């Protein structure tokens, strides 16, 4: 007998005559309302990420300032990232085409992306490898991640985000910079992922 | 209202003052409690140590002694929790034992529940001029959810200075036979509880369970700390004219 049949057989024997249970979902489900931008800003900041609120015309200038302050010269720009937003920045835009090797990614100064969804209540941004985001390694290996979030992408809570996302895509949920609580259960920012996360919220 | 006192074997044997205090307190509030003589032990020690058959026998005896009353008053959060939380499981879903349990369980009250919820009193007219701290024992707190009832009662006691106990919700380490089977861990837990009690500067530590108090008090005594332990009932029974004894 295969282990598959063995395990499934054991499961079926264990469950013979066991009644099912009812699932009650009395918790707050999807709110279907836009997320509170101020709350999102506050919650992202709680993770010790850098946050700015800008209006649409101010994005290019804010991006340029952030990259300059960071001292970033070579920045990965995934396909589909809105070109006007980079217009004012004095950086070398590195494309992932042909795909950059891990070592090449390690050598750039940062990465700039958009996101798929952002969650106000938890201060989370979610990337789904869509336009302007690129494959997962792009936002992982570089030490600096600048993410531009449009107001329309901000949802209120976790159920809203789950409802909006497409499971078949590779998803990365990011809440603040890389951190660890492994030393005396105190949170320290900055381990293997980007040690600096900067979020621009476009209002 | 026919009220039975389920005094518990620990109080009956080692802390009769607590039982006497409950009787006198209830009498002062106009309730004549009956003491069903056939009662012995609720079976908690057996159940929690893994002796289910003995526990079932004792549970049968207890509900037989206690059924038919309008209320059963238990001066122990732990034994009240045993009756309410564990008896239904021991009794199964049908049969005379299950019927008796179904009859007794909803009528079983820990003392402060009986005072606050059934009699509707929070000021029992007590006088106790001491600095007191209160330890909410685990089964009172998380088993039968006594909540604020004991503190509400204590706050109305004349002359009593109530001081909060830091880390109050943490277990004292008694746990019945746990104190013997895991004596080292139990003592370590108790040491922390004792330290918290001493930090309050209280002269008296009270609780709704004499078993936990026996444990904490045993260490307070061994350290010659001078802090004494007293069941809540004895404080509530004290008046300006009469002490407990």
């Amino acid at each position, binding site marked *: 007998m295969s282990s598959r049949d063995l395990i499934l057989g*054991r499961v079926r024997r264990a469950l013979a005559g066991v009644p099912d249970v009812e699932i009650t979902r009395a918790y707050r489900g999807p709110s279907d309302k836009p997320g509170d931008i101020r709350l999102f800003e506050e919650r992202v900041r709680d993770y010790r990420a850098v946050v700015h609120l800008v209006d649409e015309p101010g994005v290019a200038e804010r991006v340029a300032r952030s990259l300059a302050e960071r001292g970033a010269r070579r920045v990965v720009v995934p396909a589909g990232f809105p070109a006007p937003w980079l217009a004012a920045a004095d950086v070398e835009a590195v494309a992932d085409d042909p795909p950059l090797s891990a070592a090449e990614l390690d050598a750039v100064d940062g990465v700039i992306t958009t996101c798929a969804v952002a*969650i106000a209540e938890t201060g989370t941004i979610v990337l789904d*490898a869509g336009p302007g985001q690129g494959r997962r390694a792009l936002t992982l290996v570089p030490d600096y991640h600048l993410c531009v979030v449009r107001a329309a992408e901000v949802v209120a809570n976790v159920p809203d985000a789950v409802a909006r996302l497409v499971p078949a895509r590779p998803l990365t949920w990011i809440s603040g910079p890389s951190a660890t609580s492994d*030393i005396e259960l105190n949170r320290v920012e*900055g381990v293997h992922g980007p040690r600096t996360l900067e979020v621009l919220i476009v209002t | 209202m026919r009220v039975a006192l389920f005094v518990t074997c620990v109080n009956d044997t*080692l802390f009769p003052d607590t039982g006497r205090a409950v009787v006198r307190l209830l009498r002062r509030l106009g309730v004549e409690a009956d003491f069903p003589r056939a009662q012995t032990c609720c079976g908690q020690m057996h159940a929690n140590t893994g002796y289910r058959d003995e526990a079932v026998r004792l549970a049968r005896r207890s509900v037989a002694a206690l059924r038919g009353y309008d209320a059963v008053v238990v001066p122990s959060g732990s034994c009240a929790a045993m009756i309410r939380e564990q008896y239904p499981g021991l009794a199964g879903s049908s049969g005379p034992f299950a019927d008796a349990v179904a009859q007794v369980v909803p009528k079983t009250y820990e003392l402060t529940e009986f005072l606050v919820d059934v009699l509707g009193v929070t000021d029992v007219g007590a006088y106790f001029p001491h600095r007191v701290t209160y330890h909410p024992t685990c089964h009172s707190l998380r088993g039968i959810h006594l909540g604020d009832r004991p503190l509400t009662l204590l706050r109305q006691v004349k002359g009593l200075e109530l001081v909060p106990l830091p880390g109050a919700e943490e277990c004292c380490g008694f746990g019945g036979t746990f104190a013997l089977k895991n004596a080292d*861990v139990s003592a370590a837990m108790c040491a922390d509880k004792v330290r918290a009690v001493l930090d309050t500067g209280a002269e008296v530590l009270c609780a709704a369970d004499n078993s936990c108090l026996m444990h904490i008090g045993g260490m307070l005594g061994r350290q010659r700390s001078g802090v004494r332990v007293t069941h809540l009932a004895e404080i509530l029974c004290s008046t300006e004219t009469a002490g407990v004894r």
Partner: protein
Amino acid sequence: MSVTFLGMPAERPFPRNAARAVRDSQLRFNLRKATRTIRARRASVVAEAPDWAELREAGRAIKEHTLRNLDRYLVRLEEAVTAAGGHVHWAADGDEANRIVAGLVKATGETEVVKVKSMATQEIGLNEALHEQGITAYETDLAELIVQLGDDRPSHILVPAIHRNRAEIREIFAEHMAGWGRPAPGDLTDEPAALAEAARLHLRERFLKTKVAISGANFAIAETGTLVVLESEGNGRMCLTLPRTLISVVGIEKVLPAWRDLEVFLQLLPRSSTGERMNPYTSMWTGAAEGQEFHLVLLDNGRTGVLADEVGRQALRCIRCSACLNVCPVYERTGGHAYGSVYPGPIGAILTPQLRGMGSELDRSLPYASSLCGACYEVCPVAIDIPSVLVDLRARAPHPWPERAGMAAAGWVFERSGRLARLQRAGGRLRRLMPRRLPGPLGGWTDTRDLPEVPKESFRDWWDRTDGGRR
């Protein structure tokens, strides 16, 4: 009967391990500090969620429903993962899982793998099994790294090195990093940020060049075939993203029916485990993502035995958040090693004896490693009634004869109120003879505590003599 292996050998009984642990002041201090920090953090983010009780109820019910239909959901998961280009393997026990993983690694021609922290692979002793096959597994989670470098054992399910403080960690890094790769910086201090930086540098190159990764998973969605890993440091993302081959070893109880169910568990888990609104990184992938080769190994290793137990089966709802460990007064004073299993604390006390049986003295003692204070049940995000399972296991554990005799005697006395009354009277008469120190197992009490004074008269005798105080 084969004995399920749980990552470490079952040795001395819990009370003896605990007696040693409670005397270790460094351990006591480290644990007290760490558990208190995390408890406060959890309490504040849980209090912030207005629908926590409803989320907890839904979490309990979803898990319970999944367990009751586990065969259906496992088959569904297999279909979905396969359809998305992944390969599914079934392992009846740890040995089989280890063989499968070793075979998959060998097929790639690699001899080094990077690992994301996973309880399942610890449980089956995968690293040791791979080592025997000439494959080196590098742990990449900071706490796992500390344990691996220090040749230590994990003592917590979320933070395996919780028993170590910063000074000890610094020493381990300074001494042992060189033996495993890039040495620690010469001027390493015990600042947590400096220690995290040392780990970053030590592992960086390995992440960039290793071709095979091994992970576990927090959840596996039957409906879509999606696997979910929650983490903090980014080591998980490194392992899940960069290597060409990814092998995930996942216990069969980790399956969830539908994508939507994540809306519950992505709230329950981060708040219960690290006490955050959300953990820094969560990765979700379905099948062969971004051209990776993906293998899912579904692990039984005793779980179906637990599933068959009416009371104990609820332990399979566990999402390994570790809230029960962090709040447990026993765990706080003994640490995890005393439990002799990769699953310590309250969940370990109910899971280990169910998975491994109660054949050894240690495993028999685990259901008693609790004062039944109920704090674990209160914080458990899937409402596992740990105290009830402990009591149920105690009823099935073989008891030592002196205890049986004592319990039988007590039962006999309580059987008749007259017997109790006679015993009370004898006690009242002999009260002055009561020794200050009790013999045998009862000495555990009097070693540290005084005995209460035995009263002259029991309550029932007072009642009879005074007609309930009316005379």
